């Protein structure tokens, strides 16, 4: 039995009978944001913007405050450039459209690929998977199971082979097969390991031997329960592979994934997908409005 103890009810109490937003209100706002992993710096920025708005617009009531908050927070989240904006149904900007999936260990890269494959295929697209994680125990087997589950072909080599070679094979094969979309899985790597980050740059260069403007999307997968370290992840992966979009996973738990506000604020990378479970149906196209609302739903059990 879940009870939703909405953050706004707390703010409502704090604001009752007051003609302005005071410390108490701002404190509870700070608590809500920080507890959602938004981080101090971004929280302070948001609060300053709210303060400025309130000072300008003078007296506000609770529902107006709610509106202002939502607007200010949504404003920090960026949209993908129109040239690279797509959903599963629409035509993809390029054919074959190459998506390279990267991230630190265990965040949900392989699972997200399975879910994306399912969604693209359902929308009638020819999908091809590339098993370029040749390192982690049973990584290729895991992706193979996803390829069977979704009925999508896979390009793979033996464990321990060169991931760049697998990526090269996959993209070449996609060109000759006429695939619409290619999803390349990579091994999890911590962003502070230079040689592993260099390997990603190499995968990228090798793909470009086949298709010069590929990969068209570099999807950085972030675990929604990660705290402030996600900022470093975004920074280092962007430096190594020019990340173009984010996917946030495991938002079916109680973690809020608020660190993406900080990432959006600093790196201007759009969030495109969110993961809400382990099944292939458990992927949603990111919706700013819903995401911001969920930041304030303090779910308790």
């Amino acid at each position, binding site marked *: 039995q879940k009870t939703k103890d909405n953050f706004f009810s707390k703010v409502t109490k704090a604001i009752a009978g007051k003609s302005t937003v005071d410390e108490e209100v701002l404190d509870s706002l700070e*608590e809500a944001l*920080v507890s959602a992993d938004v981080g101090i710096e971004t929280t302070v920025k948001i609060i300053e913007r709210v303060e400025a708005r309130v000072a300008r617009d003078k007296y506000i009531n609770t529902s107006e405050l709610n509106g202002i908050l939502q607007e200010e927070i949504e404003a920090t989240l960026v949209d993908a450039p129109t040239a690279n904006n797509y959903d599963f149904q629409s035509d993809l900007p390029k054919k074959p459209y190459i998506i390279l999936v990267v991230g630190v260990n265990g965040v949900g890269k392989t699972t997200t690929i399975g879910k994306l494959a399912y969604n693209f295929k359902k929308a009638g697209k020819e999908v091809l998977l590339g098993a370029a994680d040749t390192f982690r125990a*049973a990584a290729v087997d895991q992706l193979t199971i996803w390829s069977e589950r979704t009925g999508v072909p896979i390009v793979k080599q033996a464990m321990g082979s060169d991931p760049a070679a697998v990526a090269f094979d996959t993209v070449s094969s996609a060109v000759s097969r006429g695939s619409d979309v290619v999803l390349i899985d990579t091994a999890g790597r911590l962003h502070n390991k230079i040689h592993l980050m260099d390997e990603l740059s190499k995968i990228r260069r090798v793909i470009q031997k086949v298709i010069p403007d590929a990969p068209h999307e570099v999807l950085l997968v972030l675990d929604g329960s990660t*705290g402030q*370290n996600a900022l*470093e992840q975004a920074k280092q992966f962007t430096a190594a592979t020019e990340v173009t979009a984010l996917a946030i996973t495991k938002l079916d738990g*109680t*973690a809020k994934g608020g660190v993406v506000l900080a990432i959006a604020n600093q790196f201007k990378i759009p969030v495109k997908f969110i993961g809400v479970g382990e099944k292939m149906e458990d992927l949603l196209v990111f919706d700013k409005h819903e995401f911001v609302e969920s930041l304030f739903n303090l779910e308790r059990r």
Partner: protein
Amino acid sequence: MFESLSDRLDSAFKNLKGEGKITDLNVAATVKEIRRALVDADVNYKIAKEFTDTVREKATGEKVITAISPSQLMVKIVKDELVSLMGGEATELNAKGAPAVILIAGLQGSGKTTFSGKLANYLKKQKKLSPLLVAADVYRPAAMEQLRVLGEQIGVDVHLELENKNPVEIAQNAIREARAKNKNVVIIDTAGRLAVDEAMMTEVANIKSAVNPTEILFVVDSMTGQDAVNTAKAFNDRLDFSGVVLTKLDGDTRGGAALSIKYTVEKPIKFVSSGEKLDTLDVFYPERMAQRILGMGDITTLVEKA
């Protein structure tokens, strides 16, 4: 963005020079800085607040001597407090039994399977025990295969039942196998699960009651943010686990979740996992963790590694 805490405190303390006592007045700004530094290190917001309240009490009235700056004194108070919170007595893993049963649980992707392999390797090599790994994750694609490969790498047997979808049965059968084969420690790798997933939490509680574990280890990713407290509490409520394992410490996270968890459930952190290779397992040093959270540079570890 992570300035060190001492830098932050230097600016907060710029008004307090030389001798004098730390008073409520000059400590207020500092306490706020400390709180923010802790929250930036992913210490839970409420815990950071309680923690800094304690620090404020301890600091007030302390004499500032000229040899040490007020900010250094504050850092010392904070660090000592952190170490004492995270420390307590070192509690060794209990691997005694016929066989000892160690149950591994935690969120998805936290590093349970890898840790299971590391622990088996450690018990085999360091403690000269004969472990049996048990693949009780019946959900994740290729989870059993993953454990099988790890077992092969370290030369440890793995109990596998590829067609069995019942982890409770698998665990029970494994213990029987261990007895038959004279294995003295059984390590049960379970599926990742969310604390809010009622059915899955019941499942792991059922495994617990079926096998009566010697140790239950809660495996948590050291990069976890504010939610660490909720998760640790929920797992502890259901399993009453005996220890915590912090993983992925080879990254550059501050690891404030460690403090939050310790504070919330009061269970010892027994191991830290810092790498993908199976020999990267360490016991836990409170002092190093405190320094890491504070961003004071883990000099001891660096020196040892050199």
